[in-house]
């Protein structure tokens, strides 16, 4: 991921685009379920469809787990997804959960090998500054790149970051996210709520600082 160039792409956000990875113009759930079946029969183009629909989600999730090694780990995951696709049973959501589980396992293997967790300790100020935002007054987060958003979420404690990303980015419900994480869904809900609160606090701090030029980041 070339964060520099991506950070330069500021997305103008609209409130109505929360589910853009799920938007109808991308392949819908039924299309994906169909693509799963066809790919299981050996259809290359359908596998490509699956890859394009799911890979961005996996990659963003993996960035919170393994940082800049996410692409390598994602490649490992797709190797296994391709190999084990025939044994998968389920629909679109099930496939995303299955793929996320594979990706997470590969990430854990990777971390065991690396013995490190390269989550960047980056403040919201850094992220917004790097995104080139000049209009700091009042609209700090109205223009933030996907990359910066993922990096900010990745600064959460890992259980919170994973819970938020599995739900928001991978698009799983609480129960499916809990299955991926091997936890009870109540615990995952709590982690995700805490993660959101902490993110809100940080954003609020940034917002406050933007206005008052004070050090608003208190954590």
């Amino acid at each position, binding site marked *: 991921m*070339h964060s520099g160039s991506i950070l330069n*792409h500021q997305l103008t956000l609209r409130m109505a685009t929360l589910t853009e990875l799920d938007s109808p113009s*991308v392949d819908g759930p039924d299309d994906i379920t169909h693509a799963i079946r066809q790919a299981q029969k050996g259809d290359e183009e359908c596998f490509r469809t699956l*890859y394009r629909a799911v890979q961005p989600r996996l990659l963003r999730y993996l960035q919170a787990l393994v940082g800049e090694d996410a692409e390598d780990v994602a490649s490992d995951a797709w190797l296994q997804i391709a190999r084990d696709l025939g044994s998968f049973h389920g629909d679109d959501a099930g496939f995303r959960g299955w793929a996320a589980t594979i990706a997470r396992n590969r990430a854990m293997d990777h971390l065991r090998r690396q013995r490190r967790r390269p989550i960047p300790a980056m403040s919201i100020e850094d992220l917004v500054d790097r995104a080139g935002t000049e209009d700091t007054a009042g609209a700090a987060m109205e223009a933030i790149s996907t990359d910066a958003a993922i990096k900010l979420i990745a600064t959460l404690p890992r259980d919170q970051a994973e819970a938020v990303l599995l739900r928001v980015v991978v698009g799983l419900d609480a129960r499916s996210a809990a299955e991926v994480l091997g936890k009870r869904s109540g615990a995952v809900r709590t982690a995700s709520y805490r993660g959101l609160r902490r993110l809100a606090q940080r954003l*609020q701090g940034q917002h406050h600082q933007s206005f008052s030029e004070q050090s608003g980041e208190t954590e």
Partner: protein
Amino acid sequence: MSKHRPGQINREAAERLLRGESGVPQDGPDALAGLLAAAAAPAQAGELAGESAAMAAFWEASRSVGPQRHEQSGLRTKVAKFLTVKAAAAAVALTAFGGAALAAGSGALPAALTEPHRGAHPSPTHHLSSPAARPTPSISPHPVGSPEPASAPTAAPAMAGLCQKYLERLKKTGFHDANGKGHRIADDPIYAALVKAAGGEPKIIAHCQTLLRTQRGGGQQGHWPTLPPGFPTKMPTWPSSYPPWPSEPSTGQGNH
């Protein structure tokens, strides 16, 4: 603009945010919703840089479990086998799958997957052009339109038997049958299918070499009969241009 104090998200609002529901309440935390929307924004081309490697993995997997795919995919998957996934992304994309990689980088992606804002984003090919972790083998699958004879047909075993028989006979008698009447062994009706498949008698040897080599997985060039001097058919130059794959047992045996 948020009027909220930090930490004031109730569970209901949090659940809506996590579900990505578009109907974010008016009093919801704007900045947080914006952050989550950015996290779930449409795919960017750079995120799909590993597509070639993933497709190679799919081809490999399909080949080992599914019905026999067309012959060239076998070569592709051999390529994939010898490279790490990352190297495959570079080497394979630059050879066999160049078209797909280019398509991904040149706007052939579904419009919805590309970032709708600010058209010019970096091409994903810069990921692919990074130096491969291992040297790229100098071999590539047959280019389309290769003058080489067609690859082995699916009815390979029967044709391979004909080839064996033809070559054995050729070895014993030469091109003209030993009965002295001057007719060529290729004129024997039992070889009619072979002559047809090869596209004429002069191409039989090349055709059979392709076929048998595919059947055996290569590496047995020494098997071929010595041709009589002056034989008009050009011998393919495979032994030099086509290094054998290192120890891959029983390639093609699954066809039987």
